[in-house]
């Protein structure tokens, strides 16, 4: 129950706190960028004779890096034409699609008091099942495409639901089970990609055949842009999760369970069944993320299909306070960091790992509210 309390506390973070946590992390990232910069190092070695040099280099390093990040993530004002100038924002949205989907899945679980950290495994299962259908099932596109998406939902849903079943039938802790399920999914995928079940017959590497043309998510802006129609599926999922949590009977019971399982039980809500449903819905959303990756972006199944999306999703769900719109905003922020990191590394030579550090710092600050309050001298939230 301790995890549950920590979860509650994190989800209770105010919007202002979240903003300051992001700001503090970016500032900290700036410090790291400056330290690692060669110009900064040389100019600081003669700081006392010409401090202007050092401060100038400092500014150039940090501003240059974040400027590159902006050009890589939002709008490239140096691009020759408008089409290329807006490509960064479409990249950002493409990166954010699986993060938001999996983040929504985790948000459902978090709001229901379950610390699901198994998005990675659930994405992989969604992608595996969806990919298998998209590669091997012989059907016309209007059957194959919905079937492949459905397979992703079912794959993630079953893998998540199984955790719920274990929790309700044996009392197993979902944190531990989902972590282990992540490993099982990762290595099962690796295994299957080395056997004829998923491996492309002609390939020597653990890679599947490409998905069939009819099963693909079409690209919105055509070749040269990553953004595909999975993005709209993601927006629909945001709306659906909002409805589920705020308007539906099922969501009411989910939230009751999340806030006070004892009262939910006494009110006649079937706790065991609800655990299973929560985890199934949660996993299904991550499963869609997997389907969106394999059918929209990757188009070929590899061991890297889940990338770090499963981990990012945890951060995003916490950062978005497990509210659908919050998750959408946080997911887009993370998509932007990811898209910007590429340009930052290419143009400024700043290693893209800096972005991962910034992301981790955000979580750290969110999870340690007193720290941020102390840094920015914010008053402690007064309970009415």
């Amino acid at each position, binding site marked *: 129950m301790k995890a549950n309390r920590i979860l509650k506390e994190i989800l209770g973070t105010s919007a202002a706190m979240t903003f300051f946590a992001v700001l503090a992390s970016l500032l900290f990232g700036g410090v790291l960028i400056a330290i690692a910069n060669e110009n900064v190092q040389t100019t600081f070695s003669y700081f006392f004779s010409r401090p202007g040099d050092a401060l100038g280099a400092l500014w150039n390093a940090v501003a240059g890096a974040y400027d590159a990040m902006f050009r890589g993530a939002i709008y490239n004002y140096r691009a020759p034409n408008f089409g290329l100038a807006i490509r960064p924002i479409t990249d950002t949205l493409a990166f954010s699609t699986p993060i938001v989907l999996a983040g929504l899945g985790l948000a459902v679980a978090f709001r229901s008091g379950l610390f699901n950290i198994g998005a990675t495994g659930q994405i992989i299962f969604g992608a595996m099942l969806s990919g298998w259908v998209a590669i091997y099932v012989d059907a016309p596109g209007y059957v194959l495409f919905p079937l492949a998406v459905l397979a992703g939902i079912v794959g993630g849903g079953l893998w998540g639901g199984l955790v719920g079943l274990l929790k309700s039938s044996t009392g197993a802790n979902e944190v531990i089970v989902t972590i282990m399920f992540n490993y099982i999914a990762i290595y099962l995928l690796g295994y299957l990609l080395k056997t004829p079940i998923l491996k492309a017959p002609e390939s020597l590497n653990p890679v599947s055949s490409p998905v069939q043309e009819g099963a693909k998510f079409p690209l919105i802006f055509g070749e040269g842009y990553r953004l595909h129609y999975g993005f709209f599926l993601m927006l629909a999922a945001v709306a659906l999760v909002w*409805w589920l949590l705020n308007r539906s009977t099922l969501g009411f019971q989910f939230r009751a369970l999340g806030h006070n399982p004892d009262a939910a039980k006494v009110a006649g809500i079937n706790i065991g069944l609800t655990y299973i449903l929560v985890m199934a819905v949660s996993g299904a959303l991550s499963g869609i993320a997997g389907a969106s990756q394999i059918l929209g972006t990757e188009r070929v199944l590899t061991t890297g299909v889940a990338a770090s999306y499963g981990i990012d999703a945890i951060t995003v769900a916490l950062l978005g306070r497990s509210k659908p719109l919050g998750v959408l905003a946080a997911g887009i922020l993370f998509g932007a960091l990811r898209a910007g990191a590429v340009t930052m590394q290419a143009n400024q030579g700043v290693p893209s790992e800096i972005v991962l550090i910034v992301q981790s710092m955000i979580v750290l600050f969110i999870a340690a509210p007193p720290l941020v309050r102390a840094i920015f001298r914010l008053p402690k939230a007064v309970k*009415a």
Partner: protein
Amino acid sequence: MKLELRGVTKRFGALTANDNVSIVVEAGEIHCLLGENGAGKSTLMNVVYGLYQADEGEILLDDKVQKFSGPGDAMAAGIGMVHQHFMLIPVFTVAENVILGHEPVKFGGVLNLAKARDKVRELSARFGFDLDPDAIVGELPVGVQQRVEIIKALISDAKVLVFDEPTAVLTPQETDELMAIMKQLRDAGHSIVFITHKLREVKEVADKITVLRLGKVVGEASPSASAAELASMMVGRAVDLDVNKSAPKLGKDAFKMAGLSAWNDQGTQVLFDIDLEVREGEILVIAGVQGNGQTELTEVILGNHARTSGSVTLDGKELLGKSIKQILDLGLGFVPEDRTQDGLVGEFTIAENLILDQSDRAPFVKGPSIRQDVVKANAQEKLKQFDIRAQSIDSTASQLSGGNQQKVVLARELSRDLRLLVASQPTRGLDVGSIEFVHEQIVSARDSGIPVIIVATELDEATQLGDRIAVMYRGKVVGIVPADTSRTVLGQMMAGVA
């Protein structure tokens, strides 16, 4: 030692918990601080004990202004506190507990326990506490543990003793013994501050009474004032302390429990072969000191207890083996003992809490959605009907006072078609005004022909509300008696003596 508070004000944000409170407690006097929950009694005493610092005003001991920056200062100045929840370490002996925090040492830093033992024996003999310094505290009855708390205060030479709701956990006999101890301490020259909301106790021991309401002193009263007068001062309006009910109009035997036994998760038997019947239109009170199987008994009725044997029937239908939902559907209304833990979702709004057990049924549901308009209309109606004081139906349950929380639970449970109402300590922690309201609702449920089971730990509630009283002791029903049975007999039954 004389304790005086002058114009003490303590604020928490926008809330003023104590507003310009002035009180004088003379040496050799039992001074009762009477007030409802939330009147600011405990805050005031925490200021006296140094746990809080007053925003304004001062504390004087024998006319000297004191500055307490923590309980250590207060103790050193001669103030001792007997907490509602004992601050004792259960695995330590009495002597070890008593010296905790100011351990006497011999040469070389060796603990001098012998001295502590002697001191415990001496104080115990002086006040007739009958305490063995080598007894393990966890194995002592609650009333005796409380005496350890008292000795702990006395051993550090406390001249002013503060008792914070000391009788909440005691049996009637233990309460009487505590009263006697308090009088002895007073006669020995100690000043005693006795915090309580129980009028009977106040009238019995108080030399002087100060009534607090909403953080302010509303007046002093003499112990000869009637209970009704004291209650009106506490609440600020005339209240009726008696439960008004007519003779029961009994119907058929609707609820039966036969040979019921139950075991906890560790396999220890907690209920022993219980037989009970409750008729339509009757209130059966289950009386007993907390922790004698009442909680388990209500859990069994609700279907929330796994290991049972025997039979529990409602209108001829067996309840054992059914799920909570099935039993609620058979018409059980359930008011749990701990409303914040089991009755309400604190973060949910009042409107949401009012449909907690009806979230999947008409009229609140249409297809997979909850009908927000119906939920809102229902909440508005219940707010009026049950006089729930809240800013709006969108206030969360955790923002409500205990009384209003209980009204939300009652409003929800009574709005279904009931065949049985089970309410566990329905007025626990409520103020006088809310108690009156809750009792009315329960009696009117009974008058509408519903069998009612009430778990009560306080004798006054048991005798006033019940038509019959079943007394539980150590998991057994030791007797079922009429409601006009004397307090002495009931007290003895609750203590397992008779």
